[in-house]
């Protein structure tokens, strides 16, 4: 059995590690590993926190109210709260540059999925058409991951686009808003399916509707965005906790992996990492090396390694990220109803819009705005703030947002590279993302029109002018820089995740995706990492 060094503790890293340990390998995990702060008052609801915390403004907005969403053209309807600050903190040594692209990078224990919303959707054969394997190859690993993380779901219209593989838990309780949307959908289903190619179903979420593997079921405290104190929403740190109990596992936090050394035949000999405690460089060796640091960090490690060993600055082409827009709407039938903030705060419904080309399927999730921040919403209403507040209070229960994603493809003019930082021996990651898939602008207009019509059929009104197209990078679904290819190709990897350039190096995060469907990718990241660990010879 081999000794394996994994860089990164995110969704891919922990599931690779667990599968590798199950197969008898010895695993060392190198990580910066900023830990999650303990959520306060574990039993308190969203509103109780505001009454019982010593300094609730600091908890909800930051010590100087620095996470307030101020008015500007790009203002979102909600933002990451201070309690998730640890997820996006970065060591001083790590620098990026990418005009026009908003990169989110995580060095937290558990990585970016510590701040996800738990959406888990299998990719079907259309989504995988550019992957070097089919759905059948991934299915057992989807099932394995669903056993590990616990998925609440219902078999409904979304299943025809995202195969329903695995023993899922019963779905979460719906709130009145989501219930009403599903009721309306049931009565207009054939029209919506036939004329608009629009489908609605329950969200599939890695959130527990009953206790599972030491984690507690959702208690509907309404605190999802601020950090679930019951760990009902799965985060990779839960699997990291499980790894700590396993023989053969060693976790080394506090190290920023910089690059690896390799011999002329491409065999990796060591990983060099900087200790964040003393700034010293340390060398770590193993028989096999696994990069699971997230697409952007993994790319930087590969680029830095080539630069350090040869002096060459390479470009990794094909960076992808889903375009994302938010369409707020009002469910007319719920105007004037009282709001109940003790509810599951994240999305409860999933939507799909079929496209002419199967791989261009559009995926979305509907969030009803009960336990979210008020100020980002009311500042967008077309009235003064006092009137907006009064209108908001009467419409609160009726408000929702459809978050919609479009697929992305690898294109050569979207790439990452590095640039030496003057006066240091470091480099910065340079991100260039300038082009969009052919016809995307028209597609966005068409999807928004379809969605608006569908919402109207569901008894909702989506005011034009309030839809927000988010800038490239903000989906945090980065992929494609070191893709899996069926035949050996430079700066790519085999279907089993093995680098074609470095024989004992494996790549298991989003960097290896040759295509990015509209659906949330994290479930597939976890399943693919488990698959690579399982088939690694």
């Amino acid at each position, binding site marked *: 059995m081999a000794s394996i060094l994994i860089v990164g503790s995110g969704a891919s890293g922990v599931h690779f590690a667990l599968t590798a340990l199950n197969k008898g390998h010895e695993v060392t995990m190198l990580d910066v590993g900023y830990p999650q702060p303990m959520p306060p008052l574990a039993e308190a609801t969203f*509103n109780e926190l*505001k*009454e019982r915390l010593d300094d*609730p*403004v600091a*908890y*909800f*907005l930051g*010590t*100087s*109210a*620095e996470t*307030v*969403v*101020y*008015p*500007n*053209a790009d203002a979102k309807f909600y933002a990451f709260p201070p309690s998730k600050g640890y997820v996006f903190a970065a060591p001083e040594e790590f620098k990026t540059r990418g005009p026009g692209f908003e990169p989110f990078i995580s060095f937290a224990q558990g990585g970016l999925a510590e701040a996800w919303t738990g959406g888990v959707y299998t990719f079907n054969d259309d989504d995988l058409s550019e992957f070097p394997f089919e759905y059948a190859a991934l299915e057992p690993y989807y099932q394995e991951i669903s056993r590990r993380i616990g998925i609440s779901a219902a078999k409904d219209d979304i299943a025809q686009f995202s195969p329903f593989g695995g023993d899922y838990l019963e779905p979460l309780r719906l709130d009145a808003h989501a219930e009403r949307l599903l009721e309306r959908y049931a009565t207009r289903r054939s029209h919506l399916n036939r004329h608009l190619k629009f489908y609605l179903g329950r969200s599939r979420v890695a959130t527990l509707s009953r206790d599972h593997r030491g984690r507690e079921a959702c208690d509907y405290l309404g605190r999802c965005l601020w950090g679930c104190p019951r760990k009902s929403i799965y985060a990779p740190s839960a699997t990291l906790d499980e790894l700590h109990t396993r023989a053969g596992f060693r976790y080394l936090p506090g190290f920023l992996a910089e690059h690896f050394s390799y011999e002329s035949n491409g065999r990796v000999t060591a990983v060099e990492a900087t200790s964040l405690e003393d700034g010293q460089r340390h060398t770590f060796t193993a028989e096999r090396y696994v990069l699971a640091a997230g697409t952007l960090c993994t790319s930087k490690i590969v680029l830095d390694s080539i630069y350090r060993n040869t002096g060459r600055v390479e470009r990794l082409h094909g960076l992808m990220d889903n375009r994302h827009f938010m369409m707020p709407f009002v469910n007319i039938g719920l*105007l*004037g*109803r*009282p*709001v109940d*903030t003790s509810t599951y705060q994240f999305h409860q419904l999933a939507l799909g819009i079929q496209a002419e080309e199967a791989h261009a399927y559009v995926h979305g999730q509907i969030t009803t705005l009960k336990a979210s*921040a*008020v*100020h980002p919403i*009311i*500042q967008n209403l*077309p*009235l*003064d*703030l*006092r*009137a907006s*507040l*009064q*209108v*908001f*209070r*009467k*419409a*609160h*229960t009726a408000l929702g947002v459809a978050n919609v994603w479009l697929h992305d493809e690898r294109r050569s003019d979207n790439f990452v590279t590095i640039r030496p930082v003057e006066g240091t021996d470091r480099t910065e990651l340079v991100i260039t993302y300038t082009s969009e898939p052919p016809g995307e602008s028209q597609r966005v207009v068409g999807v928004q029109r379809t969605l608006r019509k569908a919402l109207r059929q569901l008894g909702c009104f989506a005011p034009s002018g309030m839809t927000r197209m988010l800038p490239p990078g903000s989906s945090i679904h980065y992929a494609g820089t070191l893709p899996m290819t069926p035949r050996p190709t430079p700066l790519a990897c085999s279907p089993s995740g093995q680098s074609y350039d470095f024989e004992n190096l494996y790549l298991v995060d989003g960097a290896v995706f040759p295509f990015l469907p509209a659906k949330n990718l994290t479930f597939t990241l976890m399943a693919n990492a488990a698959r690579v660990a399982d088939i690694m010879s």
Partner: protein
Amino acid sequence: MAESLLVASAESLRREAEVFTRYLVARSPSDYVAAKYRDGHRVIPYRRLTGTLPIDELLVRVARRGVALAWLADTYGRIFRHDGPLRQKLVLLTAILESSPSFHENMTGSRSTSRVRVYLTLLGMGLGFVVRLAVAMLVFGPVQLVGALTGPKPRAESERPDG
């Protein structure tokens, strides 16, 4: 000489917290809310500018004077200075109120209302807004127009030649 928005004193901020809280939720602020409002001005975006527009100075100065004038200034600001300092101050205060003990209840729709009443509220608010906007344009419009024709535009500190 009146103080600039960029160096507002603690007393001015206290006064703003009092008037603006009454404007938004018809209550006086607690000491906690007032202190948080003052602290929030350390990172409020407009303070990163090199200067302020005369219209923004005027809107804030007028709004400080009382609830009715705050309503008038905010109405104008919503349309013509949507991301200006006055709106930033009011959004900051809204965010603080919705996170603060007892005040958060003023911000959410916890009571049931008939649909007819909702429509009447919407209609009333919409009409009131239009009337206030017409008055506000007469009061503030000329100042903004003159300022736009004559004054320099404030820049972010990072855009300063030496910044």
